[in-house]
């Protein structure tokens, strides 16, 4: 773990970022079939920020998130979680980094079906052999409104409840950053609003950093800032977005 913490090669203006990339490039295939999913992306997300990444299908938004979260590797450029340069880490160190410093919320299949809601929430802690901070976990569970559902298995929970468990899991270990990949993609609008509301609360009340990939302007409206990607590049940025403004901007992509 020491290597992860001691790596402090980041440049000054962005050194305090929770996560960032420098010239992130990802190329799939070779020669004529080469696809450039990311083409020199440099972004940074500050601690306590709720960022959203938007873009049409194939814009590279999911690839960017996977590479920033240590789930995928870059072809060129660098990605950092805090001061840790992900390209210098092997599989084991990356796994431990994800476990200890990153939280995840996926679009679907977020939970281990054999574990109860509570066990799912504490899964990363349990994998680390830790109990976690009971007071904190209690607060997280209460915030997402799951106190009476903790002994249930995922199959006994609604889609919205399952996503709330996923958010609670992401929050439980107080990660440096949470990556959410279309967290409301499979939910009806009411459950979606709930999930986004809790996410917003986590940022505002708990100081949590969140980066969310979405193609839903309503979801993006909950963020502090939206990055727009197209053809593997950052093409625009919007501070304090609203759903309408995001929708207008999206229309320009002809999506």
């Amino acid at each position: 773990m020491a290597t992860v913490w001691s790596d402090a090669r980041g440049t000054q203006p962005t050194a305090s970022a929770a996560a960032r990339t420098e010239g992130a490039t990802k190329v799939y295939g070779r020669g004529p079939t080469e696809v450039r999913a990311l083409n020199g992306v440099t972004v940074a997300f500050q601690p306590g920020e709720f960022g959203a990444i938007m873009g049409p299908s194939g814009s590279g938004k999911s690839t960017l998130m996977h590479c920033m979260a240590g789930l995928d590797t870059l072809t060129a450029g660098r990605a950092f979680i805090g001061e840790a340069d992900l390209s210098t880490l092997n599989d084991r160190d990356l796994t431990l980094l994800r476990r200890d410093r990153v939280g995840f919320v996926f679009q679907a299949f977020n939970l281990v079906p054999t574990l109860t809601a509570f066990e799912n929430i504490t899964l990363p802690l349990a994998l680390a052999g830790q109990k976690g901070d009971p007071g904190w976990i209690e607060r997280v569970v209460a915030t997402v409104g799951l106190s009476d559902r903790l002994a249930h298995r995922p199959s006994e929970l609604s889609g919205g409840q399952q996503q709330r468990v996923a958010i609670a899991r992401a929050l439980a270990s107080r990660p440096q950053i949470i990556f959410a990949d279309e967290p409301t993609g499979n939910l009806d609008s009411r459950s979606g609003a709930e999930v986004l509301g809790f996410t917003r609360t986590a940022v505002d009340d708990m100081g949590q950093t969140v980066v969310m990939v979405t193609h839903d302007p309503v979801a993006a409206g909950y963020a502090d800032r939206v990055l727009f990607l197209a053809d593997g590049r950052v093409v625009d940025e919007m501070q304090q977005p609203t759903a309408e403004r995001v929708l207008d901007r999206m229309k320009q992509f002809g999506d």
Partner: protein
Amino acid sequence: MFRVTLKGLAAHKFRLAATALAVMLGVAFMAGTLVLTDTIGKTFDDLFGDVFEGTDAVVRREAAFSSPEGQGDQRGRVDASLVRTMAAVDGVAEADGTIQGYARLVDKEGEPVGDPGMGAPTFGGNWSDSDDLNPFRIVDGRPPAADDEVVLDKKSADDAGYRVGETATVVVQGPPQRVEVVGIAKFGEADSPGGASFVLFTTPAAQRLVAEPGKFDAVSVVAEEGVSQREISERIARVVPPGVEVVTGEEITAESQSDIKEGLQFFNVFMLVFAVVALLVGSFIIFNTFSITVAQRTRENALLRAIGATRRQVLASVLVEALVVGVLASLIGLAVGVGVAVGLKALLAGFGIEIPAGGVVFLPRTVVICLVVGIGVTLLAALSPARRAGRIPPVAAMREMAGGSSGYGSKLRIGVGAGILALGVASLLGGLFGGGGSALPMVGLGVLLVFFGVSVLGRTIALPLSRVIGAPLPRLRGITGALARENAMRNPKRTAATASALMIGVGLVGFITILAASTRASINATIDKAFTGDFAIDSGTFGVGGLDPALADRINELSEVRVATGVRMGSAEIDGHVEELQGVDPATAFDILNVEPLQGAPSDLGANAIAVFEDVAKDGDLQVGDRLPVLFKDTGTKELTVAMIYGENQPVGDYLLGRAAYDANFADQFDSQIFIDTVDGVSAPAARAAIEGVTADFPGADVRDRAGFKEDQTSFVNQLLGLVYAMLTLAIVIALLGIGNTLALSILERTRELGLMRAVGMTRSQLRSTVRWESVVIALQGTLLGLAVGVFFGWALVQALSDEGINRLEIPFVNLAVVVVLAGLAGIVAAIPPARRAARLDVLSAIVTE
């Protein structure tokens, strides 16, 4: 439609290979057994063809009775004068007497050669000067000319290191003989006939040392040119005395061949049982694999149904897959079987069972049996999953895949399982205690049904059992342990079927372990109770030959010895059954062997008397003073008087003769065992030294104290146990392959979930650990079920065998605990390939929604 199936097969080569392997191993074992027994059979056919090639007729005593242990007919000897009678018959070119009896060569270290108790027999015989009748050919030296000259078969000479001109010791009737090796002979092309050892004397010496003076075991006849075997036999038959029979050369060849085949038949069945067990285990794995894959392909099959495939076509597609697996596995199994035959031969040799075998005999029958059985088992096992595939409704294509079946199984299923189990138990107990001719098939069927019943019930007990077995895991292994336990519990049907395969092998291991321990305990208890002396000498020949009776007398003369008594063994026909009799010296035997005399007195055991075990007396309604007709092979039927009835038949058996009666009715005199009690106050080492001073002159007479004697008497148990364990290993290996296969398929199914866990921070080694512990839970489940079944089988058999002297149920907890530990370790090993597959999983592709 078939193209879809074949493409599916090609796409899942791993699954195909694992499934085929399960069948292949069983088929290979079966093929190996058949090839080996055919090869041995052919070797002996050729051997006896050679032995009797020049023989046109054989004259011998009619069989008195047939020995039950496959040792052929028991008959007395003929008078030597018959040779002259035969020679005088018109058309007889040559007639010569043959002798074949017990003799054992002693090597230069003083150890007897061979092991007549377990391995090939050791014979003494006479050297025949007739080239047509003598199958031996001298390769070095010359035939014996004097009474102290012998010819050895080449194998024995090589084993014992004797060369022409050297002096050797031979154990025969009476005191061991010092002889000069004057020749070494080959048996046709072979060094020895079937591994047996031969010491060939001159005819008079052979009569005196291995038969009776003036007697032959048979007279062989060569006819003159142009006289047929049938013709010469008919002519001879007119002149032989009553009680003597004539058989043609062809008949004696066929008889010898079929005697050996009968012996082989037992061996064949013994080995085939293990092949069947292996196939049974394999069928569980096929059933399980197909069940899982059919469940995993629900949507695919539903799609096929939706676009127009009939129910029958979907069913057929699964069966075709099974057919391909079955055919491939059986063909490979056949080929591997030849190698297995060689391996089995080596294995048996490792357990002291040396079998002679020439080139490999591969009969068309072997191919047919193996293909039919291999393909049949595969198709049968795949039938139920195939039917389930056919029943998948088209609408399932639109549904999210079900998370696998769960729950305890229907009430009907529990009822059916319990019914099968009850039927199995009934059949097993009926076979064991009901007696009758169909006992063995009933026991076999019972065992099969019990296994089947438990496996049907497996689904119901799998969930609670996994929960209990896995209970310590969360504490021991944290989250990975908890996940492993949950994974083992999430699909009880799958866990149960996988565990059932292991249950069979472990069940049989548990059973045989209990049976062995009980046998050992019973023998030890019997010796403790019945043998009150300090030392024993066992010839280790199990009644075929043995020790010079003079040995017991000489030990008796020692001042350190209070009493020594020799026990002789023999068989006779009583009331239509061949029974083992023991001959004892009434003056000394009951001083040292506690047989609990109930009526009559040992001193009444005279030349016309017999003693009978209490239960036998009760069954035959015999009282002291009653007459009992006994048919001896040497002396015919004698009316013996029941002089004593005794209450303990271990170790002396159901019938006892006094020395006078034994000597009068048995031509050959050997002590099988000698029991010794030392004088009080003489130390054990001093007594042993004194006794060994005497036994030094008697090779093969090893002095054992009580503990050593017990060890000797139970050593066959260990030997057999080792062999059976080795055979059952196959079934267990196949079951472990099945665990690996199931886990691999489960992992495939859980790709998303594993990817999720990797994403949120599960390391590769934690993932491997999860798979490993799930495997251990499944393995332990199969093991515990197996041991439960095995304990029941062991208990049942020990109850049934209580009349045979196995009257003590001993459950060797330590050994069974070792089995459990080994099973856990085996589970870890079985999980290595699937755990590696799981750890190699690409996190990103697992979690990305398509």
